[in-house]
């Protein structure tokens, strides 16, 4: 709009100076609907005087390719059209384009800035809630499908013998050593020949057993590693 331009003409004698003060306005990209900040993007003025703002060359190039933003999946236009994003909300009323310039009022400016922050937060919360609700039904659906797939394909995961024993869809339980107990109790492995403590890497032959009786594992280790012959 021409009202955007304030041309200040300073007449100094014969010299005429023209100073162009442009009012800043955040536009919406025509293609993806993101905000175009000053200094970014390209504006295209068509012959019928319609102005297209683009936030970046991606949008600009898509426009030149004559793509319809309502069909291009990553644009806001598509998302709103297909119900992916929130379309109707009272917070959108605050963002409508106003063509009347407001006289600067410090309080008004301050309140507006505070309001912008708050409204933005409310709007983004509502938008994310909208998306969450939309995705809820999908989660339930996926659980159902997963269960069905498990029922059909249980033979891929669980051995038939195990299935015969335990017909539930859970995998057989494997008992593993709990890391907490390792420090407290190292259970030795006994055999006819002697006993071994695998974790410490000790094997005590039965001939040595009388020598190591009553000793703790550290001492046993010393006895064994010293290589004394008994």
């Amino acid at each position: 709009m021409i009202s955007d331009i304030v041309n200040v003409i300073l007449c100094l004698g014969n010299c005429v100076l023209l100073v162009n003060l442009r009012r800043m306005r955040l536009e919406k990209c025509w293609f993806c609907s993101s905000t175009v900040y000053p200094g970014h993007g390209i504006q295209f003025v068509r012959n019928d005087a319609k102005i297209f703002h683009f936030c970046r060359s991606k949008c600009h190039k898509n426009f030149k390719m004559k793509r319809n933003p309502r069909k291009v999946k990553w644009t806001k236009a598509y998302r709103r059209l297909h119900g992916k994003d929130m379309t109707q909300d009272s917070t959108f009323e605050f963002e409508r384009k106003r063509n009347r310039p407001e006289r600067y009022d410090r309080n008004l400016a301050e309140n507006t800035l505070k309001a912008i922050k708050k409204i933005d937060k409310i709007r983004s919360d509502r938008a994310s809630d909208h998306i969450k609700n939309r995705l809820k039904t999908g989660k339930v659906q996926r659980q159902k499908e997963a269960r069905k797939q498990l029922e059909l394909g249980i033979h891929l995961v669980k051995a038939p013998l195990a299935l015969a024993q335990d017909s539930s869809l859970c995998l057989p339980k494997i008992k593993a050593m709990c890391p907490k107990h390792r420090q407290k109790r190292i259970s030795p492995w006994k055999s006819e020949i002697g006993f071994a403590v695998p974790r410490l890497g000790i094997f005590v032959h039965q001939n040595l057993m009388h020598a190591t009786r009553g000793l703790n594992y550290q001492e046993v280790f010393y006895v064994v590693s010293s290589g004394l012959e008994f």
Partner: protein
Amino acid sequence: MIQPQTHLNVADNSGARELVCIRIIGASNRRYAHICDIIVAVIKEIVLNTPLERSEVIIAIIVCTHKELKHDNGMIIRYDDNVAVVIDQEGNPKGTQIFGIVRRDPSIVIVFRFTMGKDTIANIKTSIRNADMNRKGTIQIGYLNKKSKLS
């Protein structure tokens, strides 16, 4: 990026319809012209019953280009076609009306910066603004045609 052999449309009622750029005024070997640059052009097509003739060499100022113009404030603007306005040696427009989207460009006032006189520029600005408000496609340059009213 207007260069010799570029065809340009004309956005005023001077009588020319299409121009072909011959030369760019400025440095001797200047390659390209942008918005607000002055070119020497030859008239290829005219509107009947106007003072201008076909294959007449005139001077024009470029008002719209298809190539983007980068303003100092970071704004980049591109138009749909290449348009010029016919001017004379002093820099006064030969026509009395300017058509089309030219009126919306902020540089249009720069176009007429060399027409001296504070009131002249004010007249042009007022007529642009009025044209805009009335949504008319044309503006009238008041100082040239003293009889007509500012629209």
